[in-house]
């Protein structure tokens, strides 16, 4: 039970953190249309938004939860299981970023997820 909860936190917090960072950068790009698109200004715009900092906080939470999880759970289970990030990320991008993920992209995401799980499992 404890392993399942921590694994869920790792997957949801890391994906949620990345989705928030992506949201902040998309917002910054939208706001910057009138003032050019220099990378420095774009990043400055992104880091002015609270979503970016919340995203970084969630990614830090995911990292430390992963470290804790690895202290008792088998790495051969944990690392391939985190490949679920790709599926959760695609679902999150549909729900929160309003992206349109068609059948082809879903098939690609599932193949990538399977491939990462195979590689990670073979390295352990």
């Amino acid at each position, binding site marked *: 039970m404890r392993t399942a909860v921590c694994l869920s936190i790792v997957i949801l917090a890391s994906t949620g953190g990345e989705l928030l960072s992506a949201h902040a950068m998309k917002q910054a790009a939208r706001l910057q249309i009138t003032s050019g698109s220099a990378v420095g200004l774009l990043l400055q715009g992104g880091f002015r938004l609270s979503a970016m900092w919340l995203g970084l906080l969630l990614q830090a939470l995911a990292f430390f939860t992963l470290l804790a999880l690895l202290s008792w759970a088998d790495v051969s289970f944990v690392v391939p299981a985190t490949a679920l990030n790709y599926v959760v990320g695609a679902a999150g991008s549909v729900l929160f970023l309003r992206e349109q993920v*068609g059948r082809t992209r879903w098939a690609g995401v599932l193949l990538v997820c399977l*491939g990462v799980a195979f590689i990670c499992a073979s390295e352990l």
Partner: protein
Amino acid sequence: MNDSKTPSLATTLLLALTVVLDAGGVLLLSRGMKHVGRIDTGAFPTVVRAVGRAIARAEIWLGIAALLLWFICSLVLFSRIDFSYVRPASAVGYALVAVLGYAVLGEAVTAARWVGVVCICAGVTLIGRTPPRTTE
């Protein structure tokens, strides 16, 4: 909705750069930490000495710099194309590391790892056939 079927050349190069920086950063850190040696996390002075040895190694700093650049490139990509396109497409780095490990370092690559490489390449090819940006 933007109907562009393929990302621009600049975006494709940036995506390729993130893959190389991610794989390169991890390889550099891994190489640097192998010189540092095994760390006994139970003994605080040992950890402090290991950190001292780690920060004296150029590979560690190069690895950190590569991963910082990777993070910045990823943020710029998120502002240009879909998250659901960037995230899985950058997984091609796993395949790259496996192929480089085999071709450059002469590592033995198991059948399961080759199956993983093929799955990732097929998945990334499928994702590459979708429009890179589906939002305004």
